């Protein structure tokens, strides 16, 4: 499973757009990229997945450049409730039987 690198922490203010970038230089051809959000005392929650280009859902957007060696999670107009740890995961979810290797994550703090 590809190793991922994220910033340890980020600060933002309410109403701003937040972009969290994850590096995964060793991503393999069959690997997908998934992002999770974790609040204190809760299990991680799946946010978004992607393979290439751009993916958008009701929560976030995921930007993946052509070389796929990085990805950026974009959270539009964050609020205080978006304060959480965000994890980027990379893996071939078929051949690796769904095992997810969590990196250190990015602690996002949204300030009023």
């Amino acid at each position, binding site marked *: 499973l590809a190793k991922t690198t994220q910033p340890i922490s980020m600060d933002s203010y309410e109403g701003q757009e937040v972009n969290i970038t994850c590096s995964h230089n060793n991503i393999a051809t069959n690997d997908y990229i998934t992002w999770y959000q974790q609040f204190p005392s809760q*299990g991680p929650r*799946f946010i978004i*997945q992607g393979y290439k280009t751009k993916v958008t859902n009701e929560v976030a957007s995921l930007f993946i450049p052509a070389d796929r060696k990085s990805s950026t999670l974009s959270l539009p107009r964050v609020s205080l409730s978006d304060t959480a740890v965000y*994890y980027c995961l990379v893996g071939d979810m078929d051949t690796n039987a*769904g*095992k*997810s290797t969590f990196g*250190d994550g990015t602690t996002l703090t949204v300030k009023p």
Partner: protein
Amino acid sequence: SAVISQKPSRDICQRGTSLTIQCQVDSQVTMMFWYRQQPGQSLTLIATANQGSEATYESGFVIDKFPISRPNLTFSTLTVSNMSPEDSSIYLCSVPLGGSYGYTFGSGTRLTVV
């Protein structure tokens, strides 16, 4: 997506004892995963629980310490045996979301060993 009920939500245990954590899913799933999250740390995969066969353990985790049962496609248990304070962590189970490569997690069991 599947909904997971995990019990107990927290417990305080004496060292040398064992605790069994239960994970119930509202739909049938082929694989279930058990994770450990030590205080202030990320998640570490303990093992994959397969129905009808022995669990597959990750490096650093052994069956004698973390025996797992998977009696059917909706239920699994993880036992933390002969506990020491170093076992104080949050333990989580996880199953595939279905329709994506994502996973859903239980709310976790916060274990404190004294």
